[in-house]
């Protein structure tokens, strides 16, 4: 038997099937954009500030932006970095985070950047859940 939330999810998907993934993709590319698209301005702003600040502080600490995957740990770091969406692309284009890690704070910064990407993925999935009606 279908629950109320499942009915809402089905209704949301059948109403606009072509745009159901738009908040997910927008939220991945630009932190908070998925929530902005859904009119959740305060939530989106808080998410954007948190993720962008974490990414920026990571770069300010001279954290590394992963550019390739030589081993499994690099591969996991790269996957986390890619979660930052356009922030990662802009950082790479501007040549940020390219220095080798030599200080303890630079290692903290690398972790800040990876975790910012992972948090952004969580936020984008949350926007998708709002769109599909799994969450209100």
């Amino acid at each position, binding site marked *: 038997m279908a629950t109320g939330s499942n009915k809402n999810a089905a209704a949301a998907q059948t109403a606009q099937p072509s745009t159901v993934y738009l908040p997910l993709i927008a939220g991945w590319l630009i932190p908070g954009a998925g929530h902005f698209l859904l009119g959740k301005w305060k939530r989106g702003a808080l*998410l954007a500030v948190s*993720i962008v600040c*974490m990414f920026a*502080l990571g770069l300010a600490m001279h954290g590394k932006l992963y550019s390739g995957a030589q081993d499994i740990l690099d591969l996991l770091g790269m996957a986390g970095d890619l979660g930052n969406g356009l922030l990662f692309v802009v950082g790479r284009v501007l040549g940020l985070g390219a220095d080798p890690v030599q200080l303890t704070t630079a290692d*903290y910064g690398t*972790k800040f950047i990876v975790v910012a990407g992972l948090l952004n993925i*969580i936020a984008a999935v949350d926007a998708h859940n709002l769109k599909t009606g799994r969450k*209100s």
Partner: protein
Amino acid sequence: MFRPSHFLAVLLFALFASTVFGITQRETPQRMFRYGIYCFALFVGSAIVFSWVMFLIAR
């Protein structure tokens, strides 16, 4: 270059991660706030506890 102490880095990490966890894992603003505070306390508290454990092991 921004060079925070380890504890300041913990506080900043906990603040941002708790904010995202609170918003994404709960549905109402009040519950989001409470869960965010809970996560923040767990992040900082566990960092302090594990720091003392490692200090005592290293002695």
